[in-house]
């Protein structure tokens, strides 16, 4: 996997003396007291002039928060951002954002959506119109200047988003998952057009920072991938991409790099001993937010693939996004049904047995496994002690909130779902009571 450096190409810029942007010790905490939630902690990041950097990570890793702090939309709780050596206060006048959801004003036409950005900068009416018309032509929407956004397809709307962002001639071009709300074809063509504009240096833009959770997209476009992890959000590692443009997905170097990035995102399996010691920490063990029904389907698919598969490709075949895939894999690991090693999945003997078992046997097997999870076990034992009547959901939530705070609600939901799946206990939504499930 070390051979991608061989193809090191001229597109990679020489390191500049002072970075365009530098982020030091940035953290962001929301709320206070018991509701305190740390979105990101201790982030250091430099972006040099001429660089295209991708922020990559699962949802909830704070990559969008970081982007908002960098543009000045959000204020960091700790640390600071410097732009061209100067400390950033308020919205960065040299930066702009292209939004995932386009953020076009639905009551303004395409032309008006672009001109209003210029108007806010005090550009005179006549010049506004001319510059907007030129940009709209450039992104290929010449015939749609007087159309309203709702008349356009998603891809066309995002082109308006690009035109508006380019209108203000930003130095730092920020993209917040700009392609993830688009259909596959539009996304691909828009990526190509952006890369063309960027590589040909048509734009006065000095650097691009793009947030994404699409690994291939990051490898396809970026000069450097900054991988983020969660709980709380932090930078895991940075991976330089030294492949020459245009990059091809079929290229083995490309594939190797995708695998490497995937391994960095997914981490590696913890040993049984590590898990056991974690389980000892009572209720602090977090249950991944996965449906056991989905896990069952996933394990079956893995079994039919011969018990091993590349995690990334399997996710693609099942058309699961990273955010959906990771909790399922995590749940599978937690229950001992599968293992992850360097981006590959392996079915354990238990997992194999589970895949082959009947529905009834499966349920019993799962019941035994999830009872090893402290939260589930604790609920089950509490209910057994009080077998005559049900126990109020709130009672569990309060205890749990004392242990893990904010996440109590979500964790209790997952535990209840798992327990119901395994028929360990039942839940009455009307009375909000849990009770033992006896036929």
């Amino acid at each position, binding site marked *: 996997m070390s051979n991608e450096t061989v193809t090191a190409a001229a597109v990679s810029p020489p390191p500049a003396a002072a970075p365009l942007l530098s982020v030091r010790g940035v953290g962001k905490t929301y709320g206070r007291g018991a509701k305190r939630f740390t979105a990101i902690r201790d982030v250091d990041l430099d972006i040099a002039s001429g660089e295209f950097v991708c922020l990559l990570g699962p949802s909830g890793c704070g990559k969008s928060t970081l982007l908002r702090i960098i543009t000045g*939309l959000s204020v960091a709780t700790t640390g600071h951002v410097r732009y061209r050596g100067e400390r950033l206060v*308020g919205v960065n006048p040299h930066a702009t954002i292209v*939004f995932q*959801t386009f*953020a076009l004003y639905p*009551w303004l036409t395409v032309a008006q959506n672009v001109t209003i950005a210029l108007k*806010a900068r005090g550009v005179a009416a006549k010049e506004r119109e001319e510059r907007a018309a030129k940009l709209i032509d450039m992104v290929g929407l010449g015939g749609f200047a007087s159309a309203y956004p*709702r008349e356009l397809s998603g891809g066309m709307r995002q082109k308006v988003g690009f035109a508006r962002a380019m209108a203000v001639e930003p130095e730092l071009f920020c993209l917040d998952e700009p392609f993830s709300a688009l259909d596959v074809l539009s996304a691909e063509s828009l990526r190509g057009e952006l890369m063309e504009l960027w590589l040909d240096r048509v734009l006065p833009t000095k650097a691009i920072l793009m947030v994404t959770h699409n690994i291939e997209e990051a490898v396809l476009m970026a000069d450097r991938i900054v991988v983020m992890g969660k709980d709380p959000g932090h930078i895991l590692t940075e991976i330089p991409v030294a492949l020459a443009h245009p990059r091809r997905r079929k290229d083995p170097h490309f594939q190797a790099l995708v695998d490497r990035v995937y391994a960095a995102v997914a981490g590696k399996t913890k040993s049984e001993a590590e898990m056991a010691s974690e389980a000892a920490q009572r209720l602090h063990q977090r249950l991944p937010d996965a449906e056991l029904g989905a896990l069952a389907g996933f394990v079956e698919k893995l079994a039919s693939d011969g018990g091993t598969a590349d995690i990334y490709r399997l996710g693609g075949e099942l058309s699961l996004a990273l955010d959906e895939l990771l909790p399922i894999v995590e749940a599978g690991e937690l229950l001992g049904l599968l293992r992850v090693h360097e981006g590959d999945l392996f079915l354990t003997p238990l997992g194999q047995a589970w895949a082959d078992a009947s529905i009834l046997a499966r349920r019993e097997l799962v019941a035994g496994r999830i009872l090893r999870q402290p939260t589930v076990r604790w609920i089950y034992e509490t209910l057994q002690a009080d077998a005559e009547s049900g126990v109020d959901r709130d009672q569990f939530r309060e205890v749990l909130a004392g242990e893990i705070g904010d996440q109590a609600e979500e964790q209790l939901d997952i535990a209840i779902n798992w327990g119901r799946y395994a028929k360990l206990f039942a839940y009455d939504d009307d009375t909000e009571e849990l009770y033992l499930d006896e036929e």
Partner: protein
Amino acid sequence: MTRFRFSFRPAPPQSGALAPADALILLLLAALIYAGVRMTIHAPAVVTGPEITLAPRALPWYALLSVGRMTAAYLLSLLFSVAYAYAAARYHAARRVLMPLLDVLQSVPILSFLPVVLLSLVAVLPQAWAAELAAIVLIFTSQVWNLTFSFYQSLTTLPQELREAAAVFRFRRFLRFRAVELPFAAIPLLWNSVMSWAGGWFFLMASESYRVGTRDFRLPGLGSYLQAAADAGDLRAVGWGIGALVLVIVLLDQLVWRPLLAWADRFKVEMIEGDDPPRSWFRDLLAGSRLLAGISARVVVPLSEHLDGRARAAEPVPSLDRPGRERTPPLLVAAGAVLALVVVYGGVRAVAMLATLSAASWRELMLGLGATFLRVMVALLAALVWTVPLGVAIGTNRRLAAILQPLVQVVASVPATALFPVLLLGLLRLPGGLDIAAIVLMLLGTQWYLLFNVIAGATAIPQDLRATTELLRLGRWDRWRTLVLPALFPYLVTGLITAGGGAWNASIVAEHVVFGERTYMTRGVGAVIAAATNEARYPQLLAGTLLLVVAVVLVNRTFWQRLYRVAEERYRVE
């Protein structure tokens, strides 16, 4: 039929039972009413009203006066709403006071304030001005709350990314207001305006024709015309009056609201083309006008350009809009503190005044409250009995809807208070007198809210559920029990909350009636308030008004809101 769903969903009530904040708000109300009552002490004992002519040719002038009062109150409401909602949305501390206050104010029976407002204004202003101002204040208080709530909701639900885009592209405050916030709020604001106008007529009619004892507070207008006509037993004039009222309402609908709604369709946020956009023939007509296009190009566009430039120059550094996080400015805090002191003082004086009331007076008040409560319940039940079957029939049967809906809309557009005098003409002769009449009058003020909500609910039952119920071959009763009633439930609760408010309001004008030369009364809190006004018994007036407010707020908080939550959580079909 989507129109109904839009126009008859009141603001969701605040959650929770009575909070400490509510006690403060009640104190504030007590102080307010007390201040009013204090002023009424100087009110003249005899107030002479205007001469009302029954000649039909006076009607255009009367209609103009009535519409003028409504317009003045509406403009006032709009200004107030924007300022209030802005303060509540921007400043954290302000919101914690303003939002609970809004919640109580919108459930208060406004008509109960009419005597206090009228008497206190007539004490300090020339008579003609006082009645005029009281009418406008009253209509204002009936129109303003849902507008405020709607604008507040728009401000706080403006999608994050639209707000962020405005910040990234360095919009100044004025541009943000003009190009982002106002357009986003436009459609709900317009629908709520339509609602406010419909509600406003009710209070306009009541305040134009208010008389108590030797004080005649009538104002020349459609309301007093109708009352005078009924008084004189002149059925021809009654016909002319109602005809004029319906004509005015229909004209406003066709020439103002429909064109506005059709125009405002561009402000919808949905990114899909609606299949049934609102249309208006009048707007299509205007759209072809060269004159208007010229005015727009020569005046409106340059003017807004100029304003944008001025606003830009005035605020050089754009700030990121963080709703609800900003510190309240010291001036606002100071004003709030002064107000709080005044409120506490007023509240204490109010309590002192209440303490002078004898136990017998309290007993009378409580009995009156009980009687009114029973009357409200009977009126609601009666309304349920006829609106549910008819509403379901209209909502599920297209052919029936096509025939009945326009008819129902016109009939419902006549404010109940306009019909009161007319109905009294017949009802007072029946056995039971005002006791029965009061219930009928309340019914009149409540039934339409219910009917429209039932129609909306029945229309909203998903086709597939109806088909499934057909396929299951359920009997009539089972079909109602498993599908129709549960699906209607949220709409019924919404309708009943609004209708209940209407009925309480109606009690003020229904329990104490001056008809011809005679005064008719029945037991009830409305009658107590009227009698206290008449006989200058100010502690009773204060106690009655306050008690009515507390009772309605309590019933809302403890009963209706619980039902509302159950309805939203369990029975909302979406």
